[in-house]
């Protein structure tokens, strides 16, 4: 599904304050996988995501999505940004925000509206369609951003610290929303986070990045029994163990 091959990126190359954000990063993600990427803040996670999404051209290596080298944003890819308040369009209603990307999908107005309604339902926001983003709480705005991505029916969904700026309770709800949505839609999800617990709770697999320049320092399979649950999963010995493992990998390389 996604192949990242010896990826490197340098910001401001050739200038005295050039910054090596990523160096020699290799990673592959299988179809249908929910991969969490953890790494210390500022290590280059968003840079990695922007390279996958075709928003920047990496200075070295390549990214392949469904076998094609990414030059511009691949067709069936959606992104949920961390900053929901700045990624939703304030001049459009919630429904219009969700329906906007569908203009590229050869759908008529009615079909677009239906798809938007359905997506809003699946994130529990059927009542908010006519509202404007600023009338919603932060958690609800992020749900709208997720609904927009879902309505687009991507085969690959990228999420960049999607729950970084909501409160703890909302965060847990949104984590469960991702797990639920993932059960309903066939798609591969790459979720970036700096929260170790979250990565283990949500992911099938956790990849740990080093501090800048980022490369992969750990790759763990998450095998937890049963459907995940905020209370029982988090007290399961395997969860506790994995969390410690990921924590050690992040710390170990964050402080060296």
């Amino acid at each position, binding site marked *: 599904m996604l192949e990242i091959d010896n990826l490197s990126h340098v910001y401001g190359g050739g200038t005295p304050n050039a910054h090596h954000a990523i160096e020699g990063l290799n990673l592959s993600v299988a179809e249908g996988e929910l991969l969490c990427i953890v790494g210390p803040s500022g290590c280059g996670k968003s840079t990695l995501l922007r390279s996958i*999404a075709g928003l920047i051209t990496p200075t070295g290596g390549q990214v392949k999505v469904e076998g094609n080298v990414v030059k511009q944003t691949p067709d069936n890819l959606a992104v949920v*940004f961390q900053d929901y308040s700045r990624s939703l369009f*304030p001049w459009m209603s919630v429904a219009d925000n969700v329906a906007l990307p569908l203009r590229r999908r050869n759908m008529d107005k009615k079909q677009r509206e239906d798809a938007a309604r359905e997506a809003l339902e699946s994130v529990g926001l059927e009542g908010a369609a006519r509202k404007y983003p600023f*009338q919603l709480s932060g958690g609800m705005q992020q749900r709208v951003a997720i609904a927009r991505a879902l309505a687009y029916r991507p085969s690959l969904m990228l999420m960049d610290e999607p729950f970084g700026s909501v409160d703890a309770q909302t965060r847990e709800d949104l984590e469960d929303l991702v797990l639920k949505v993932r059960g309903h839609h066939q798609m591969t999800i790459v979720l970036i986070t700096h929260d170790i617990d979250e990565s283990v709770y949500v992911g099938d697999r956790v990849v740990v990045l080093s501090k800048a320049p980022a490369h992969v320092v750990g790759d763990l399979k998450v095998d937890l029994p049963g459907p995940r649950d905020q209370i029982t999963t988090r007290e399961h010995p395997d969860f506790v163990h994995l969390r410690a493992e990921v924590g050690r990998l992040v710390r170990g390389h964050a402080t060296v």
Partner: protein
Amino acid sequence: MRRGGLRTAAFRVAVLLVLVVAWEAATRAAGSAFFPPPSTIVERMHAMWFSGSPATLFLTDAAVGDILPSLGRMALGFAGGALAGVVLGLALGLSSRVYDYLDGVLQFLRAIPPPALVTVFLVLFGFGLRMQLAFIMFSIVWPVLLNTADGARSVEPLHLQTGQVFRLSRTERLLRVVLPSALPKMFAGLRLALSLSLIVMVFSELLPGTTNGIGFQLTTAYVTFDLPAMWAGIVLLGVLGYLLNEVFLVVERRVLAWHHAAQRLT
């Protein structure tokens, strides 16, 4: 809250009435030829412009001859200048490089007080409508252009990236992302342009060679020393300015409802 609002409004109207009465009393007492009482001014306005037949909406020939040409000039000049300003401003705002190159020249052009250029237009077009229209358009295009460009440049990068990720076409990005982002500043520029267009319209009519319009009516009153007529013209322009501004605000409030509401909440 509503009752309070009503009370304030009633208070303001009462104060206005008192002031008008005071104005009337003072001008009558002073008896100065320069300051006719408001009743005289209103009578004059009525006699000159609004005592026509119902068939012409009570407008007199003088009203049709003075007010309509002025409004027409202003409307055409404003529309042309605003359209050019918006289009050029958007184009300019899209490229930070082109913007950098033209910024200095445009700031200079905006800083020129438009009346200083009126003789240039006179030389180019001679007296008349073409010169007036070109002059009004040229005067107002800069504030609109610079504000629109500024607005287009201030578009949120994440909005652009969102448009890019969801593969919106170039036109869609322009119309659905860049244009709405630019609207608040564009409207600020348009509002400046509106009051400026009223000023330059009157100015262009005060020049020798004009044959109609409110400004021409003012000049006529000046040379015939007809002060009530002059005051009537001034009051009429004040009322027009007020109405135009109100209409503009209504449109702005509709178009920018999302912007104002979002601002109130943050």
